[in-house]
């Protein structure tokens, strides 16, 4: 009882000193609480389905940000990690009968190995050359998928995987819970010493190398970590949809993830997650909203694209950094962020402008 009390007091202290002091962190807390409480209010299959897919794609988008946003390794073929993990997961489930809690982590290992395979030839490439090379990999693999239909199912893909869990609500808690945990893990990685090195590689790789850091190793590490998180998303997707098919490797999916991340705000981890949580359900909101107007439902993609373009026109850094800059100010002395209504910095007591 005493130990529980200690933990409770510690949690309250952290909440008061670290979370409740900043509007962005309060928003994240409210978001997580709302996400976890949602099934208490509705268990609508359609609604939960959309949110399950949103959580899966949020992990996927954040994993892109880890590699391309933080490390600056511009990946235009991120669907490769997702697709490979989906296929590995499906094969392990269908051929060896492994349940999801084994097949998904092993599928993610497939994503890590793919990260290595892609990372090694890409080490010497930068900028648009790197982007175009990464774009080629999922296209090559799609060719391979069609070349060995006995293994991959060809055009049909591999269908009939076992269900993620026994119920839609459990699927929801598993995917949204994993999204929160993995999102937090990615954010912690970027906040760690490794994250600082990855960030530095993006800014000036030569300077990092002259500091004695083996950038090759860190870049490979970024590819592997990103592959792992994207792989978890791919495995979850395969089990939830009960299908791993060529659509998981499509160029469209690779570009979709970039749209989500750029819209939400790159180099933040939470930006891409927020981007997916806004844009993916928005498509469904548009579907429902436009349904009553003849001729308009077919304009859904156009309206979606126009909304994204307009947002980025006025918020070039992405939506979330723009909002954060409105509700928080940075201390000119210690660079710590403070709520917009504070007169003095919460850490160094400097006067805020």
């Amino acid at each position, binding site marked *: 009882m005493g130990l529980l009390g200690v933990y409770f007091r510690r949690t309250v202290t952290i909440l008061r000193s670290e979370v409740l002091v900043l509007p962005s962190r309060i928003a994240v807390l409210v978001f997580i609480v709302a996400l976890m409480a949602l099934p208490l209010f509705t268990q609508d299959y*359609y609604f939960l389905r959309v949110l399950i897919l949103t959580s899966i794609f949020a992990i996927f988008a954040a994993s892109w940000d880890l590699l391309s946003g933080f490390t600056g390794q511009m990946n235009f073929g991120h669907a490769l990690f997702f697709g490979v993990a989906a296929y590995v997961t499906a094969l392990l489930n269908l051929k060896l009968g492994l349940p999801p809690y084994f097949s998904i982590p092993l599928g993610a290992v497939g994503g890590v190995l793919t990260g290595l395979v892609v990372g090694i030839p890409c080490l010497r490439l930068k900028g648009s050359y790197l982007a175009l090379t990464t774009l080629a990999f999922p296209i090559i693999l799609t060719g391979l998928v069609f070349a060995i239909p006995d293994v991959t199912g060809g*055009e049909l893909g591999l*269908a*009939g995987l076992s269900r993620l869990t026994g119920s839609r609500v459990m699927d929801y808690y598993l995917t949204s819970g994993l999204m929160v945990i993995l999102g937090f893990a990615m954010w912690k990685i970027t906040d760690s010493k490794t994250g600082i090195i990855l960030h530095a590689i993006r800014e000036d790789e030569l300077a990092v190398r002259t500091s004695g850091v083996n950038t090759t190793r860190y870049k490979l590490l970024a590819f592997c970590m990103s592959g792992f998180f994207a792989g978890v998303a791919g495995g979850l997707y395969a089990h939830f*949809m009960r299908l791993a098919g060529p*659509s998981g490797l499509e160029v469209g999916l690779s570009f979709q993830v970039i749209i989500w991340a750029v819209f939400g705000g790159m180099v933040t981890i939470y930006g891409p997650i927020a981007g997916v949580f806004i844009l993916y359900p928005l*498509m469904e909101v548009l*579907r429902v909203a436009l349904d009553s107007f003849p001729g308009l439902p*077919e304009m*859904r993609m156009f309206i979606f694209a126009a909304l994204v373009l307009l947002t980025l026109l006025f918020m070039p850094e992405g939506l979330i950094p723009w909002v954060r800059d409105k509700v928080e100010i940075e201390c000119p002395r210690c660079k710590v962020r403070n709520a917009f209504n504070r007169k003095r910095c919460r850490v160094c007591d400097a006067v805020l402008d």
Partner: protein
Amino acid sequence: MQFLGRVGAVLLGLSLILAMCLPAGAADPITIGVLGPMSFTQGEGHWNGATMAADEINQAGGVKVGNVMRPIKLIKIDTNEFLSIPDATNAVEMAVSRYKVDFLIGGFRTEAVQVMQDIAMDAKKIFIGCGAAHPALCTRVTKDYDRYKYWFRLTPINSSYLGKVDFILLGTVGAIMKAQLGLDKIKVAVVAEKAAWADPIVRAAQKVLPGKMGMEVVGVWRPSPVAKDCTAELAAIQRSGAHIAFTTFSSSVGLTFAKQLGELKVPAAPVGINVEAQKTGFWSATGGKGEYTVTINTFARVKITDKTIPFYDKYLKTFKEAPNYTAGTYDAVYILRDSIEKAGTIDSAKLVPFVEKTDMIGTSGRVVFDKSHDVKWGPGFVTGLGTQWQGDQNLCIWPYKWHGITYEGTVPYKLPPWVVEHWKKK
């Protein structure tokens, strides 16, 4: 009090009149979700075919469920399946859980239809497929009947049968060339767009043509599905001495190839699959140069059954476009109506045995389902068609005396005159 009594009497009278004036329309409608990529011609076909059937049935009073006449209400579900599989599955989930549809019809992209199938089976709703041709969709019924019994495929005939029709058309044209031009051995150029779905056809052609059909494959050409210029391929085909260009096209390359073959008067008769040539706009899009192109088809203005020509004419008049195979949703709605009326219920589980027993004269032939719930193909059932552009008309040229079948309105195949001229000289 007297005034209130009068008002009450008037209201009661009005209510009675209103009740008598509301016949079938007042009953709960039977809702059918029409699934398809609605921004594309395939989805338009799904929707147009279904609306025609629903309008006809509703005008005739609706569907008799027990003693009640109930109207049909269609719900348009844009699956966007060409661009996003998750989008397609969300749409189907919405149809099932939000709109509470009683039945589903449509679907196009095989990979997406598999997941749609699972959602429909979870909800235990009858789903009549009108678009995806892969046999695996029906194999699921035989493998796990209890789960997948709600699935039926109506159109098109499955891809194995499509392949058969493809080679029958090739053999027919080859035989005509042999007879008319006195050729000993037919040489075939295999031209297929560079797409995965075309690979098995190319492989089959390389195996079947020299083996079973006694033809020679002079080469294989794989232009891009969106090629805007096929002159290099056509020049090579001409040099190869091919008598026939055996085509496999589903994309815009079909237009380019047909137009340039006509312009350059390449002496190889085009036969095979050319989805662009199934469309009404093919003639104007090729400026008439696509004349003599032969393609597999589902609908043409021939008397496959008594229903075909009235359906074709009405569709063309209403939508200014000839029906494509996804418009088979028309028959799907009628199959549902007939089964519901026989069963006296809209409960899918109770309805399945009645749909299984379907033996209906539809617009594309006699519809009977086999054990895997796939539409039966062959003489006396649905056969598919071969059509050829002759002048500005896409006319049926096959079946022509095939197992004794020639649909009324079918015309003989015509060889392109420049092909005849070229090979007669030799």
